[in-house]
């Protein structure tokens, strides 16, 4: 006989050939490969971008909170109605005297008046500007609200006694005050007030002060209806004493109904916002995972079509000695490589977005390595899984059937 024992003959396929055949199979169908991989790319890019952006925002917020210090307190009457719910008249002075730990305490009083540029401008146009009053005892207001003057100056002992006003940034904007040249005035419910200063914008904390026009309480009392009960008290406490002080404030601010008093830490709001950001990011990432899964289904779909289209190729390979396993491995590897290509493209896009965002916001870019590896692992797993069924179908094709010319 010519050959050795034919029953002992076995086909062999080198691993490098399995991979290079898969790559060949994909590169010879470039457009289809690109479109199919896109679903995976978008899913993974989203996963990474969402995480990167969220982390950058959080790092920034944390830096802001750290810069602010977490030692501010914000005291309000609470939500109840009637006298019971009011803070004590001049409660800020009371707090300052009785609680040694409070470093700065300042109150604002609500003034029932409307501000506009002059009497010719209808009130509606300057809607949204609120008027608040300040006592001579609380001239250090800017400390506990962490504010600063953009131009002009803040109130002093003289200015609170005369019709003069300090504006929040938004209020100044609405009232058309851009500088103090020529001593501009605004009209508050019929009386002209000299603008003596404009504050810098409050970016994160106490943003409602942006819309406020601050006048002296003495003047307010004389001209308008003004209660002696503050609408808000701002205080600053050394962080280590914060919890303790926080507990004793209500009894001092409103002995009649301490339960009504609301004492909050403004930075808490930021921390809550962080948690919300985090939750929102998780929801978006869940959506990205769904996109990823849909991408995987797309791959499975294309691979099934590919098996049908490439019936002849499968038959040829079987005639060249490919075993069922060789055929199956070809399709599984092809599907996995396809998915991984999508994954790598997604990583590139996602990381670019993270860097782009960081640059735009002037943050430091944070690469979310954890989600990056999750994304790639998911692409790998999805690709292999998506290839299973098509590979099984391909390996089950009867060789004689596969080489037969299509009817």
């Amino acid at each position, binding site marked *: 006989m010519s050959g050795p024992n*034919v029953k002992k003959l076995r086909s062999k396929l080198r691993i490098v050939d399995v991979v290079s055949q898969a790559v060949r199979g994909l590169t010879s169908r470039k457009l289809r490969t690109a479109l199919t991989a896109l679903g995976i790319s978008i899913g993974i890019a989203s996963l990474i971008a969402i995480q990167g952006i969220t982390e950058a925002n959080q790092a920034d917020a944390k830096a802001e909170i750290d810069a602010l210090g977490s030692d501010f307190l914000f005291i309000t009457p609470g939500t109840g109605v009637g006298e019971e719910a009011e803070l004590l008249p001049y409660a800020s002075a009371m707090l300052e005297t009785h609680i040694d730990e409070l470093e700065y305490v300042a109150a604002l009083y609500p003034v029932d008046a409307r501000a506009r540029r002059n009497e010719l401008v209808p009130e509606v146009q300057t809607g949204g500007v609120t008027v608040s009053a300040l006592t001579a005892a609380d001239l250090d207001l800017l400390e506990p609200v962490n504010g600063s003057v953009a131009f002009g100056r803040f109130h002093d002992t003289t200015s609170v006694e005369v019709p003069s006003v300090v504006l929040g940034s938004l209020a100044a904007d609405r009232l058309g005050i851009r500088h103090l040249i020529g001593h501009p005035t605004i009209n508050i419910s019929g009386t002209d007030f000299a603008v003596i200063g404009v504050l810098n914008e409050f970016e994160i904390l106490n943003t409602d002060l942006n819309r406020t026009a601050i006048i002296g309480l003495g003047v307010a009392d004389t001209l308008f209806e003004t209660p002696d009960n503050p609408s808000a008290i701002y205080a600053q406490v050394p962080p280590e004493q914060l919890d303790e002080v926080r507990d004793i404030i209500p009894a001092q601010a409103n002995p009649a109904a301490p339960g009504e008093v609301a004492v909050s830490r403004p930075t808490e709001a930021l921390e809550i916002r962080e948690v919300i950001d985090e939750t929102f990011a998780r929801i978006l990432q869940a959506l990205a995972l769904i996109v990823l899964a849909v991408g995987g289904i797309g791959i499975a779909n294309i691979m099934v079509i590919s098996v049908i289209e490439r019936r002849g190729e499968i038959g040829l390979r079987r005639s*060249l000695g490919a075993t069922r396993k060789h055929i199956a491995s070809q399709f599984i590897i092809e599907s996995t490589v396809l998915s991984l290509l999508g994954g790598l493209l997604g990583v590139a896009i996602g990381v670019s977005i993270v860097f782009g965002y960081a640059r735009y916001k002037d943050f430091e870019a944070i690469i979310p390595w954890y989600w990056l590896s999750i994304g790639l692992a998911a692409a790998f797993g999805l690709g292999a899984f998506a290839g299973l069924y098509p590979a099984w179908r391909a390996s089950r094709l009867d060789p004689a059937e596969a080489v037969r010319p299509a009817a």
Partner: protein
Amino acid sequence: MSNAVLELRDVSKSYAGSPPIEVLKEIDLTISEGELVAIVGPSGSGKSTLLNMMGALDRPTSGEVLIDGSVVNGLRDPSLSGVRGRRLGFVFQQFHLLPGLSATENVATGLLYHGTKGRARKAAAREALERVGLGHRLDQKPGKLSGGERQRVAIARALLGDPAIVLADEPTGNLDSQTTAEIVELFLELNEQGSTIVMITHDQDLARSMPRVVEILDGQILDGADPADHDPADHDPGDDDLGDEPVESELEAADGDTNEDDAS
């Protein structure tokens, strides 16, 4: 018998159906080393089915297929694939070239499932392409090749790995008569160089140019005469004696001396 590379013993093949379709009926056929055999018959007579049996692409319903003297039809997939890859070469009517690969790369797939390294595969592929007269087309993709050239690439691929036998199913079915003649010429040349080749065709004229002709009709081998003076009208399937011995119409021509004229 000592140099039989391929043998069918009492091979029948039926496809499921009601009633089952019996496509091959108790076929006995022996192909010896160095032979060039044409299997000829009208469309639907069972030629492709027969070739699938010979090539271990399908299993007979009954009977035995022997390659290199061993019965292979009971083998499991890995062994059967091994036999196909190592001992058989296939050429198909529709070429079955991979469109993304160059001629050399396509031919090189002939050794892919041998575990041969890429470099060695390519070297062997270039050599085979030279043999079939395509030394100047090594890097062309199939899309740039003519039908005849494509079939030459497919033949080169079938020759890789030195198969015991090359099985060609209507290799000229998609080619014009001029190109058909060239491919037949190539088969004759390769056979002279020692290759054992079985070629299926429905073209009687083409078959006549082959040293040995096996005629098939309705799944049975006709006990015919020399196809050179064969007249299809002479044949009545009922006459066929499908007894115990192999019955074939054979033309054991002295290698090539009478046939080359017919081929060109």
